[in-house]
């Protein structure tokens, strides 16, 4: 890849008169030796999976295997359709869509990891709701996913994108920054504005810990995806309005690395701290453990010992 920082990425775009998404596609083709059309259609396929997940999460039963979550996307959608909302219809729609995808994930449906399964709702929430509102075609959205991927590529290689390594800021935070930068570009913002959107968004999630109740990708992961979609829209609006990230996005990414590296292990996906260790969180974990008895299939000879450990 010819870029490794957001500054280099935005610089390349300005020099060559291309968008972040176009540079990413070009670099991916160069790196893999694959036909750009093939790469584009693979990404378009991922966008179809995202749209289908939104649809499924809003219309089908999304109760998770643990029974802890499900149905919140539909709750928000029907509230939004019938009542005046606090945040407004646009934000609430993005939120409902993000919840939908995350609930599909929790109930073992198909999603695309963006960048992880735990943060898979943010980008579809922003993208699918924006597509409906602005009437963009799927090609436009696919180019937007390449822009999001370019931003995520920089974050992942300079910092991290997994909760086990850097806390929730690394998953949800990265997803918000990717969505914010891509949305800015899809709306016609300049590469420098997309770069500011990344910095603005990332600053707002610094320090967020990963503390999943029972170790499951449900509480608080699902609602954080909903909040994440709304934050991404806000960051994009700030950038398009001309608000600058005074601390450049590459430096904010370094801060995420610093904060995540200092984060105690109990706050990095282990379920040993945070919300997971509240009295209610512990009670839920205890109950799940009770249910977690080893399973033996009904087929006849499975019970034979398999030999030495």
């Amino acid at each position: 890849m010819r870029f490794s920082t957001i500054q280099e990425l935005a610089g390349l775009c300005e020099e060559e008169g291309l968008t972040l998404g176009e540079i990413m596609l070009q670099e991916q083709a160069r790196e893999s030796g694959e036909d750009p059309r093939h790469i584009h259609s693979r990404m378009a396929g991922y966008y179809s999976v995202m749209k289908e997940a939104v649809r499924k999460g809003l219309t089908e039963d999304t109760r998770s295997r643990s029974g802890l979550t499900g149905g919140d996307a539909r709750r928000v959608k029907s509230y939004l359709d019938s009542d005046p909302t606090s945040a407004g219809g646009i934000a609430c729609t993005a939120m409902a869509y993000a919840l939908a995808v995350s609930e599909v994930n929790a109930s073992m449906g198909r999603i695309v990891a963006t960048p992880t399964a735990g943060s898979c709702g943010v980008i579809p929430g922003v993208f699918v709701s924006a597509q409906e509102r602005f009437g963009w075609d799927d090609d436009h959205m696919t180019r937007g996913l390449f822009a999001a991927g370019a931003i995520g590529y920089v974050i992942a290689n300079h910092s991290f994108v997994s909760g086990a390594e850097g806390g929730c800021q690394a998953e949800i935070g990265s997803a918000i920054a990717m969505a914010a930068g891509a949305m800015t570009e899809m709306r016609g913002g300049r590469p420098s504005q997309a770069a500011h959107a990344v910095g603005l968004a990332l600053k707002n999630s610094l320090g967020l810990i990963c503390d999943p109740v029972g170790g499951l990708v449900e509480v608080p992961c699902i609602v954080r995806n909903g909040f994440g979609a709304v934050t991404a829209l806000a960051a994009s609006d700030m950038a398009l309005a001309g608000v600058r990230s005074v601390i450049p996005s590459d430096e904010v990414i370094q801060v995420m690395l610093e904060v995540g590296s200092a984060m105690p292990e109990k706050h990095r996906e282990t379920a040993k701290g945070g919300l997971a260790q509240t009295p209610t969180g512990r009670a839920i974990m205890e109950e799940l453990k009770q249910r977690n008895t080893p399973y033996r299939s009904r087929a006849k000879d499975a019970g034979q010992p398999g030999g030495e450990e």
Partner: protein
Amino acid sequence: MRFKDVFSIIGPAMVGPSSSHTAGAVRIGRVARQLLGAGTPERAIVTFYGSFADTYQGHGTDLAVIAGLLDCDTDDSRIPHSREEAEKAGMAVEFRIGVNPLYHPNTVRLELFKGERRLTAAGSSIGGGNVEMFSVDGFDVKFTGMYPTLVLYHRDRPGMIADVAELLRRHHLNIGSMDVDRKARSGDALTVMEVDSPVSEEIAGDLGRISEVRDVRTIDLTKRGRP
């Protein structure tokens, strides 16, 4: 760079809920099936360790491993129903909980049986759907399953690696990484090679004819799973 391309950020398409506890578990199951090299196993004993042992039911890690054993890809819609699919396919599966403080938190050990064939393999899911296999039939070998992979069972003898490398050179197959372990000097050995392009049956057959190579298995998760 730890992340090499745009699809390691956007992707994989997968059945949830967790890239490490679900998608990674599918891949480990699929690697083990291909290592057995005899289609669907008749019987499988699956032992979970660490976080896998604590949360496998909530994450569907059990269903994911079964799906992998049935050759499903990470986004196969049959993953949630893989137990029923296993019964249809005549595969009996038993789950156990193991304890080993030295293991990575997300580790699973698989014993597979089919006719006379038997395979033991262990691997860890290290995040984002990426896996690291670390044991095959008691040999300590590391590989990822992200590339076409060659696994050679052979006797430890001078020149074995050179013979294998020479054959791969003739077939223009580039080795990306390689790991070798042996039970004893001049004893049973296992060589694992990750290569840059798919391994044809012809190449696997040629490797099998090298002196004192007992068996050759190939793994390729880049191929789409069963239709």
